[in-house]
């Protein structure tokens, strides 16, 4: 069965390593913070200028001057640093953030990603997404494998305006975990109960299936 949003976040959280500085995008990526494995510490970067993002505030703690990149009220974790947006993106562009997790409309087999614009429908702007995909050491994309209409989001070539090129390394969808390399999607894991055939049928781009594909493990 396809994973829930929470399960996708749980699976992504397994990619975290102790001491990682991580930037989590809006939506499912934000949920990843709830599933950091035990025994591991990560520090969250918020691109408006906060390293060491804490949990949401209690009602008493709400402060208009303390928000995250999603414009939500947040807190600073112990040992946090706050800086201006140029310094924040210096950090991102300079490759100092270990991992970025973000959503996308489409990803293609070259590791290109489209996530910010649907011509004539959605022109809100790219915010920090282009900087993040150009700068992070490692990028994981979370999204549903296919649209509501069943159209694959894992393509031979993106059809929408791009956010970045040759940058996506890993994809966690509601159906599978895939690696992107050498111009193809490589199937690594499948969601519990989801068949390889279903994944093949919903992947429009070049898909490599090598040997037995294990099911994802959730503790």
């Amino acid at each position, binding site marked *: 069965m396809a994973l829930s949003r929470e399960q996708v976040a749980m699976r992504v959280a397994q990619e975290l390593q102790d001491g990682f500085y991580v930037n989590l995008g809006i939506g499912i990526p934000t949920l990843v913070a709830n599933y950091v494995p035990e025994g591991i510490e990560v520090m969250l970067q*918020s691109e408006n200028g906060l390293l060491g993002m804490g949990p949401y505030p209690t009602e008493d703690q709400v402060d208009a001057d303390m928000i995250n990149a999603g414009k939500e009220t947040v807190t600073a974790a112990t040992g946090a640093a706050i800086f201006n947006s140029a310094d924040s993106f210096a950090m991102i562009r300079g490759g100092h953030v270990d991992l970025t997790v973000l959503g996308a409309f489409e990803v293609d087999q070259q590791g290109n990603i489209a996530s910010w614009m649907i011509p004539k429908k959605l022109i809100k702007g790219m915010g920090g997404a282009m900087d993040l995909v150009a700068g992070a050491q490692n990028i994981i994309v979370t999204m549903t494998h296919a649209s509501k209409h069943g159209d694959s989001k894992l393509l031979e070539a993106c059809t929408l305006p791009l956010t970045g090129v040759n940058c996506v390394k890993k994809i966690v969808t509601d159906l599978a975990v895939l690696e992107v390399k050498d111009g193809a999607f490589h199937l690594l894991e499948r969601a519990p109960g989801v068949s390889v055939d279903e994944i093949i049928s919903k992947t429009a781009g070049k898909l490599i299936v090598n040997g037995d594909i294990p099911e994802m493990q959730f503790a």
Partner: protein
Amino acid sequence: MAGFDKVVTSYAEAMDGLKDGDTIIAGGFGLCGIPEGLINEIKRKQTKELTVVSNNCGVDDFGLGILLHDRQIKKIIASYVGENALFEQQLLDGIIDVELTPQGTLAEKMRAGGAGIPAFYTATGYGTPVAEGKEVKEFDGRPYILEESITGEFAIVKAWKADRYGNLVFRHTAMNFNPMAATAGKITVAEVEEIVEPGELEPSQIHTPGIYVNRVIKGNFEKRIERVTTRK
């Protein structure tokens, strides 16, 4: 002898000299850390044909969004304008022109503008619509695009504390684009929560040295929050 006393007492004085067609660089991220009173004054002045450089354009009835009602903005350079229905309508109607710019590139363009760096290379946006018409150059085998700096006739910023010399300190994440914006204006105006005497701010803890600031005004802030999100 005025010396270095930058304090002004009226908004009219604070925005004196702003004229039709000017470029305004504005600090703030969403509604956080925005110079509310200076924006209101621009609305009051009814200055037109403005180019506004800001990460966002406020919301319909707050922040830079209030300048849309009377069509004061001709062009905006921003990274995200998705919170504003009126903006979208004016964009579709061709009343307003928008230059969408990646957030980090925008911050760096402002910094470069203030720092006398006319252009810099970045990988951000390479291979995307942002790269159209821009020079590409490879360094160490990776392609980068050339981005030019931004300056404006005015910069408007919001700070927490200022001293009379214009030294500024920002509070928490209300810092955001304000320090870079402050460097990029020919005339930079800071609207602040508190004015203190010179010497009260620790020199090495000043975020924006007074050399960048021409006018300081004490403001009253509503500090509206876009998304109040809490835990139990």
